[in-house]
């Protein structure tokens, strides 16, 4: 297990380096730069002055030297400075400010989704082809096929504009920033939108995983022992069916950090997804590069976590 971890961490470092180089190169091909804002806002600025600015900041140097410089900076904890959406502020600061919001939104949505999806999935598996199973199945397809932007807007139209129960967007009411209830009211609609999709897909996943387990011979053995049906389902069935579910959830974690671009945009929620969107639109490459690196790191790290968790819950899996 120790050797396995060392090997995996080594692979992870190489992979991240490759990704950073790739993203750096791709972003360098895109037109636009740190002084676009100056050009647009100050028509009297000359090409010579832009050239001088570029030289002063080192943007005229060859690509590989700029990449190397970026690597050295990152190693020292400096991820660069935003040149678009938050002019002059360090990238780390810009990202951290949004990370908190996104974690609250996505964490709440994930928690709600798991709490709803698990029992639904288990129930529709043990009552396969029952009226309730068909009902849940149709509802799942509804949830999966509903476009997020449309469903979000409908919720706003009905529950925020029409009934006035919830705010239309944002994280908190001005002047009520520390109020938990106010925070929850702001989260309600975006969490509903995100959970609908999650519950729809995850409950299907739990259902099929549970169905697979219900067919197993050891379930019959458990019944033949004289165990009550609920013990058979929970102790022998659920424990086994959660193995693939846990892996799936571990792979969902990167999504928690990178946010949900569409939902955050619809509800004007200042999170990571919207930061990425704004960063791309403003050609703010240091911010975009930082976000991509964080996401890449999380995806790779969570894959590792999923593999390790797999070995923990399933005694058949060994890494030697």
């Amino acid at each position: 297990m120790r050797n396995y971890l060392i090997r995996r961490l080594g692979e992870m470092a190489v992979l991240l380096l490759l990704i950073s180089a790739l993203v750096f190169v791709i972003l360098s091909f895109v037109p636009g730069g740190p002084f676009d804002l100056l050009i647009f806002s100050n028509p009297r600025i000359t090409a010579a002055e832009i050239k001088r600015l570029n030289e002063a900041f080192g943007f005229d140097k060859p690509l590989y030297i700029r990449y190397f410089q970026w690597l050295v900076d990152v190693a020292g904890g400096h991820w660069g400075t935003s040149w678009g959406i938050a002019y002059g502020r360090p990238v780390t600061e810009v990202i951290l400010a949004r990370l908190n919001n996104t974690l609250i939104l996505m964490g709440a949505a994930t928690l709600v989704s798991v709490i709803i999806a698990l029992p639904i999935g288990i129930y529709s598996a043990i009552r396969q082809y029952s009226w309730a199973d068909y009902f849940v199945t149709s509802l799942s397809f509804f949830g999966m096929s509903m476009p997020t932007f449309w469903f979000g807007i409908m919720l706003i139209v009905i529950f925020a504009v029409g009934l006035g129960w919830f705010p239309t967007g944002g994280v908190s009411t001005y002047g009520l920033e520390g109020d938990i209830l106010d925070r929850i009211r702001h989260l309600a609609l975006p969490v509903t939108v995100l959970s609908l999709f999650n519950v729809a897909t995850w409950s299907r996943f739990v259902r099929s995983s549970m169905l697979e387990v219900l067919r197993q011979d050891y379930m019959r053995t458990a019944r033949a022992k004289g165990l009550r049906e609920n013990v058979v389902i929970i102790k022998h069935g659920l424990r086994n069916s959660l193995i693939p579910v846990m892996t799936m959830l571990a792979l969902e974690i990167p999504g928690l950090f990178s946010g949900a671009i569409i939902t955050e945009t619809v509800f004007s929620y200042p999170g990571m997804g919207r930061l990425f969107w704004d960063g791309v639109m403003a050609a703010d490459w240091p911010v975009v590069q930082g976000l991509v690196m964080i996401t890449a790191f999380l995806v790779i790290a969570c894959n590792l976590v999923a593999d390790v968790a797999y070995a923990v819950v399933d005694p058949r899996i060994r890494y030697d």
Partner: protein
Amino acid sequence: MVSRKQALLEVKGLKTHFFTEDGIVPAVDGVDFSVAAGETLGIVGESGCGKSVTALSVMRLIASPGRVVAGSILFEGRDLAQSSQEEMCDLRGNRMAMIFQEPMTSLNPVYTVGEQIREAVQTHDRQISDGAARVRAVEMLRMVGIPLPEERYRAFPHEMSGGMRQRVMIAMALSLAPALLIADEPTTALDVTIQAQILELMKDLRERVQTAVMLITHDLGVVADMADKVAVMYAGEIVENADVYSLFREPLHPYTQGLLASIPTLASTRNQRLNVIHGTVPNLLRLPPGCRFAPRCPKAMDICRQVRPTLRDVDGGRQVSCWLY
């Protein structure tokens, strides 16, 4: 012969049908047999003749779309066909236990074998402490001949061979000294040498635990080795009931005769063809109107194709379902 009043298990007119989309499948269609305390009954037949469904019906472990539709299953004086699932839970693993054909998949992969035996003990003996149940589980592992039982208690099923896993299943089944052990093809999935070991173990434990055994198999050799009485099943029915000696000495039903004749012997010459029963088992959805074996029977008469025979007593305390007798 076995006297009826001593019967531990007495099954009468058992019918278990499966309600599928294609129609009703009468997997078990009116079966009578009995097992006395301490006795071993072998149930023989080809794949799909309903022997496993019979066993699962006695345990009341038939899953939807199957259902016991008729008959009585008297076990220790109570009719299991009428018992609630709650009552069945108290009996299963306790007074009656079962082992299965597939030792590789019959144990739960995420719990150690020791835990799974301990769970069986504690399900029925709720007063027993964790420590005592654990000691009991280790004892059972030792009893079924697993070396280093204290260490193997902590082993997961995937760390054991098929033969060892079947020993664990036997340990689990016998941990509460049941009056009846149902063994559904316990050695079919094992290597021949391991088969012999498991059969020896079962014979030995049958004496020590004083349990009756209902042994389901398609292997006549296993029946000859283990059973006191034999019930031969064909297409959901019992066609012949006899004690093991009479059956092998003088099989009455043409199907039984065919089964015995199909065993190759060392005396037969190399070029000699194997005796086979021609034709295939009938589709249970489209059964012939008369005797179910008639289409394959070399001795079939007109009546066989028209009227279904019933199981009747013949000389020597045997029963056979055939118009020849």
